[in-house]
């Protein structure tokens, strides 16, 4: 009798597990049934927007943007922390930018190396005093320097804060209607600023922010502060990031930009309206996703005052950035990004499915929350649920294989689509060999690279829950080298 009751209990337990696994399977199927059409919409919007942009490029006279008296001046903010080795080269590169009116503000964020000395020597800096308003909160400014030889350059030496704090300090000193944020270790193509500012001059409604494409510089040949020859990197982990960046920028941002629902302009290279940035209180110091946070708050602000605006992604101005070449750095970077995403979405949760915020609230925000943020959790649950389904006999192994194949192929099609769009438009990777390599790596993008990213993201989420306000040593993206003291 006891044996029978155990059997009954076991069978009831299994039935309950089966019930929940079947329910989970159904929920996950519903999730993907909703997500896949959204992907399709984004892809179509990206293709349409890309086509329109290429048509516009044929007629857009950059010469007019360069010569027009209406082209607004731009303040370029370069936060620098321990950049002694590269800062002078970066500033020289920025001074060579093809743009009629720029003001370069380097913010030395309490560097512990010779960043400031390098700048002083190279540009003959002279200490001065300037009247400025502390409109945005920032750490104490120690001194301000001008360069009598290069009047466009201004160097602010301040007490160490964080990247947002440095940007706020720069914003307090900026005088132009638009400001451009640039990481100190990226390479901008000479006409990138001109190209990214073209929509500001040409759009009918106020352009709040514009961002260009960020491409991977690893593997490329660099000479005199410019990319001389575009090449694919050698390491697999870097090539996979090339594909990821193509997918993220050419599809994601292009598509969302077409819907005027872009929530991210990369802080590595983005142009923003200074007036609106000041109105919303500048950058938040207590978040790591300061670039996304600024854009999301701009959406909220302009929607709340019911003023037409545009936040645009421009795919042809290129900013070349170094991506992590080892797994450890990549894990830290991605975990930090995901932590930032979670933080920004949580702070602006009122936008979630809120018609008041238009496509940004109704489409982009739920997408970011459901796909980008919670996607990793859903995928992990999906993997567990499918494995259990196989073990419990809910699905036959053939069916499981079919589902796994479906997921793999659908994901890979997305990756290949990104390469296809690159091939149809800008074709930066010229040789057939590089194209083959790129395509070969797309086969590994969904498996195992995606699972690796899922791990990084979940790590970021756990970290956020455990230590929501600690950004620790990972506070800066693209800053090198980051000492442990930070």
């Amino acid at each position, binding site marked *: 009798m006891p044996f029978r009751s155990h059997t009954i209990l076991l069978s009831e337990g299994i039935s309950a597990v089966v019930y929940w696994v079947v329910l989970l399977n159904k929920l996950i199927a519903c999730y993907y049934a909703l997500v896949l059409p959204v992907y399709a919409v984004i892809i179509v919007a990206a293709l349409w927007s890309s086509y329109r942009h290429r*048509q*516009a490029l*044929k*007629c*857009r*006279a950059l010469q*007019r943007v360069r010569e*027009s*008296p*209406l082209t607004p001046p731009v303040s370029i903010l370069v936060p620098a922390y321990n950049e002694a080795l590269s800062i002078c080269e970066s500033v020289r590169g920025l001074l060579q930018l093809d743009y009629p009116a720029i003001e370069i503000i380097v913010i030395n964020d309490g560097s512990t190396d010779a960043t400031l000395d390098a700048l002083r020597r190279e540009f003959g800096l*002279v*200490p*001065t*005093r*300037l*009247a*400025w*308003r*502390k*409109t945005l909160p920032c750490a*104490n*400014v*120690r*001194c*301000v320097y*001008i360069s*009598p030889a290069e*009047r466009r350059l*201004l160097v602010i*030496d301040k007490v160490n804060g964080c990247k947002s704090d440095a940007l706020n300090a720069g914003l*307090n000193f900026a*005088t132009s209607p638009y400001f451009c944020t640039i990481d100190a270790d990226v390479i901008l193509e000479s006409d990138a600023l001109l190209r990214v500012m073209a929509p500001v001059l*040409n759009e*009918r409604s106020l352009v709040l922010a514009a961002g260009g494409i960020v491409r991977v510089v690893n593997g490329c040949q660099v000479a005199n502060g410019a990319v001389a020859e575009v090449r694919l990197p050698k390491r697999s982990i870097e090539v996979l990031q090339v594909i990821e960046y193509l997918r993220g920028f050419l599809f994601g941002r292009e598509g969302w930009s077409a819907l005027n629902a872009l929530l991210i302009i990369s802080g590595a290279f983005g142009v923003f309206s200074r007036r609106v940035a000041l109105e919303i209180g500048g950058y938040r110091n207590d978040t790591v996703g300061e670039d996304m946070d600024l854009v999301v708050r701009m959406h909220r602000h302009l929607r709340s005052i019911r003023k037409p605006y545009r936040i645009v992604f421009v795919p042809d101005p290129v900013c070349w950035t170094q991506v992590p070449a080892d797994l450890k750095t990549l894990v830290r970077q991605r975990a930090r990004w995901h932590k930032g995403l979670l933080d920004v979405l949580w702070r602006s949760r009122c936008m979630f499915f809120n018609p008041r915020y238009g496509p940004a609230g109704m489409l982009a925000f739920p997408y970011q929350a459901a796909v980008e943020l919670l996607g990793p959790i859903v995928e992990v649950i999906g993997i567990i649920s499918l494995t259990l389904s196989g073990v419990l006999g809910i699905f036959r192994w*053939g*069916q499981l*294989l*079919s589902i796994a*194949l*479906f997921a793999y*192929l*659908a994901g*890979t*099609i997305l990756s*290949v*689509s990104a*390469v*296809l769009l690159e*091939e149809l438009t800008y074709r930066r990777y010229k040789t*057939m060999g590089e*194209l*083959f390599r790129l*395509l070969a790596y797309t086969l590994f993008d969904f498996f195992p690279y995606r699972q690796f990213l899922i791990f990084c993201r979940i790590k970021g989420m756990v970290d956020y829950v455990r230590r929501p306000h600690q950004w620790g040593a990972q506070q800066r993206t693209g800053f090198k080298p980051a000492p442990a003291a930070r």
Partner: protein
Amino acid sequence: MPTILTVPLALAAVLLLMLLFIVGRRAWRAMLFRRLDAYQEYWLKQLPALLAGATPHVSSLDKPKAREVLESLLVRRLQTSDPVVRTQAIQLLERSGLLDSRLELLQRGSRWQRLHSAAILGQVGSPTVIPALLEALHDKNHAVRIAAVRSLGVIGSAKVAPALVRFLVASKAVDKTVWLDAALLCVTDPQQFLPLLQSERPELRALGAQAIAECCEHLAVDQLEPFVFDPDPEVRAQVARVIGKTGGASAVRLLIAATYDEEWFVRLRALAALGQLRAVAALDAVMRAMGDHNFRVRQQAAATLAALATHPEEVLQALTLGNDRYARESYLSQLARSGMLWNTLPLLCSKQDSLRRGAEELLENAIRAGYFHEVQYAAETDPDPDIRTAAARLLEKCGTNLAFSGAEHGAGPLAPAHSG
């Protein structure tokens, strides 16, 4: 099993097709370019004779790609500034029938052919194609109309200017960029844009104002006078900007009037324009604007003042006496930012009394207002001992003996002064 794998197999097929398409397209492009190179090589050999007056053989123009290559070679030749080469190329286009076939395609081709022809004819740039392009402004397809506008802009003939303005007025939605690009290349007399400022449609008024602002060299200030007081603030701001470029007898008077405008950005534009004109007569108006309730206007007034004042020491003295700390700080800040304080230092050793006294007075007032950093830095580091001594003496005179150490307090911000 077959039913289970149907969807994955379909996806695999799609994936395979995509991969094949990408690789195939790249390979096809490589092949196509090789073929085009072969045609190009052939035509380049023939070109001297053809340009000299020979007619290409009919059989050599049989293949569309061969025609395309010859056409693109000639169009490229047309981009050169040599008028003889241009004439020869246009004659060859006419002789070979390529121009006629393009004109025919523009009128009767498919949408894509009309679009492509409109673009090519713009590059040909011959006056003979203008009527066809003007006709294409009424094409049923929007993209073709836009391509025609663009091509007319490329040709840049003043004759088409009225037609372009009429096209803008008649159209409900025009690509602003394309129209502006074309109009700015064709319209030599900005007066043709003036009627747009009186349009009832605000977007046309704004576009007209922008067009005028971008090509204002030939516009007399008297023609713009009525628009200084236009009801649309965007127009007023653009007109102020234009006046700053054109100048003229009544420019300063009009701009001074604009400094009283109710909109801050019009006042700001007017002040910037006064700076551009170096209108010393407007000094009082700019001094008054230093006390404007809007922060940006005050900043611009300070920048204008720094540009206008031939004797900054006198302006600084006046501002100090005026007891407006914010105005004085703004002005000194502009002088510091523009490098004027630093550049004044060598004048401390000038042999001309007036220059030396002016420099001393300016720097003394600056030091007393807290702007001592340049002088102190010069006293410590300047390679010229005379300047070091003069700077040190000046610091001593003002009672400032601080050693330069980053000067944290020197970089302190101003407390918010007024609203705006």
